């Protein structure tokens, strides 16, 4: 399979995995392994000082996986920038999944604050992977300010509804010069395959794996679906049967010379 290249770094896997909502660190680690992923997203939270349990970070082998901190919880650009700086201080990693979600119900990304934050963070040296609604104009504006990817959502996060924004993501893929990672809302391996067949460069999955009855087995199913979808995209899909028409109403004039 061809390599995924983000900000000059090569990845063999085109599946990014979110680490939230797992029943245990062990199941999370086993799922990461089964998925074949090389990029795992993590969030930042305050330590519960009355009950400082062990950090989950120990469960993620950072030699195998690139840690991709996100800015979840940020409600505006300023909060996202603060979280980004904290994430870099905590991990030494300048990769960042930028998400700004002012609404507490659907967690839909704020396009204006995201663009503002992206512009500043790119200047501060971050490799920015912004989570966005499937908005082609926003995607181009983010590319213009120097983000490493765009990550349009397929459906509201956690809904598992599949490629509900397909028509807009088609345009984003057609216009983008940076990798397009379809994020959020992909509930089944077939949804991931659909995104990859369309020409998405990668997908990010969290809820669909973490909340499956058997997350490890589902992680492997997504791995296969992403590979199959990418291969189908590269192979060039066959069309529906072509039917020739006998008459030539449009081009007949070419023969009447």
């Amino acid at each position, binding site marked *: 399979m061809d390599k995924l290249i983000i900000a000059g770094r090569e990845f063999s896997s085109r599946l990014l995995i979110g680490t939230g909502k797992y029943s245990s660190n062990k199941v999370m680690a086993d799922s990461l392994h089964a998925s074949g992923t090389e990029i795992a997203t993590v969030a930042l939270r305050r330590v519960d000082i009355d009950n400082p349990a062990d950090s989950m970070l120990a469960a993620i082998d950072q030699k195998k996986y690139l840690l991709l901190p996100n800015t979840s919880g940020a409600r505006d650009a300023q909060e996202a920038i603060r979280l980004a700086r904290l994430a870099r201080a905590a991990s030494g990693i300048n990769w960042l999944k930028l998400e700004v979600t002012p609404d507490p119900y659907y967690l839909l990304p704020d396009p204006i604050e995201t663009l503002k934050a992206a512009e500043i963070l790119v200047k501060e040296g971050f490799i920015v992977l912004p989570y966005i609604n499937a908005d082609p104009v926003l995607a181009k504006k983010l590319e213009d300010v120097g983000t490493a990817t765009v990550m349009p959502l397929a459906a509201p996060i956690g809904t598992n509804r599949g490629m509900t924004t397909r028509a807009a993501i088609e345009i984003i893929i*057609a216009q983008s010069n*940076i990798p397009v990672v379809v994020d959020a809302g992909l509930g089944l391996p077939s949804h991931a395959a659909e995104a990859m067949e369309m020409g998405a460069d990668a997908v990010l999955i969290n809820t669909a794996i973490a909340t499956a009855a058997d997350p490890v087995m589902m992680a492997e199913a997504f791995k296969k679906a992403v590979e199959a979808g990418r291969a189908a995209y590269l192979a060039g899909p066959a*069309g529906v049967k*072509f039917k020739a028409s006998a*008459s030539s*109403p*449009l081009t007949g*004039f070419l023969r009447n010379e």
Partner: protein
Amino acid sequence: MNNSIIEILKQKQLDGNGEKYIERMNSISQADVELELSKVNAAYSLERLMTLISPAATNYLEEMARQARQLTIQRFGKTIQFFEPLYVSNFCINSCRYCGFNRKSDAPRTRLTIDEAIADADIIASEGFRNILIVSGEDKEHIGTEYLTKLAEKLRQKFATISIEIYPMSQEDYHTCTVAGIDGLTMFQETYNSIAYKYYHPAGPKSEYNFRILSPDRAASAGMRRLGLGVLLGLCDWRVETLAMAEHSHYLMKKYWRSQVNFSFPRIRPALNTPHDYKHLVNDADMVQMMCALRLCFADSGITLSTREPAKFRDNLINICVTQISAGSKTNPGGYTTEKDSLEQFQISDDRTPEQIAQLVKSHGYEAVFKDWDRAFTK
């Protein structure tokens, strides 16, 4: 990702005679073409375009025309845009072997003062046109940013869009033009084959292939909304030229997403004092195939057909995939106001009046659009 079009064409070996592509296109089968035509709304790829312009696809012209027509109506509606060229100077310091403005041509030269140009433009406006294209030979001393700025500021009062088809400029000069209200650039590369380019443009500033090919980049960076590409059909193998032009267009569309790419299809026509021994002349069927193939790869690109083409050919193509036509065009400076015998750039073939052509467009069930956009909304 950040390669320039020069590097892209070099890497893909599309800046030469494209031998390997000719070989590959010759091996494309009818089954390959049928497979390609069965894909609905497929995106551009070099492979798709090669299949659609291959010799095998000549047997599927009717189906290509049918799909091209459907796609054009779907994206543009049943409308045809009208525009008219305004030739302001036929002085030229270039030596293009195919052109009537060639500096070695001893025919009389004319350049219009601003007032003379406005007089021609008034006639164009009175015919109903609201889209105008300023055309000039490479006459930098006279037709510079100062002239263009002054002219554009006057034209703005009467025309909704103003484009230029002149020599390549710096980004700064393009910016000056856009500020003055010029919002479209037409810059035909003539040929993407850099060796043939050198041959056909032996001297003068136009001999600089790289500076010319990067003009749309500079213009788009300066804010031009429409970028017109074209190859002079007849200089080199049309199939290879189509692939190179498509790569150029694809690159521009992705990089300058605010600008619209338009394709033109200038065919070599007899001009004064130029030789007539072109080996790659393009016939009507070739040209229809080329236009339809580009439409099937670029659903949203403008396709322009000028009065170089005969009336009957234009009438048929209106029904397939053309979105813009010129009408009533004079290709000599001052041609609208006087009958004076100044040097024409080329001979036109469709000499019907704009009104006659508009009538014909209507008879096909299309609306003839003299303007579709008002500057007042953006300036």
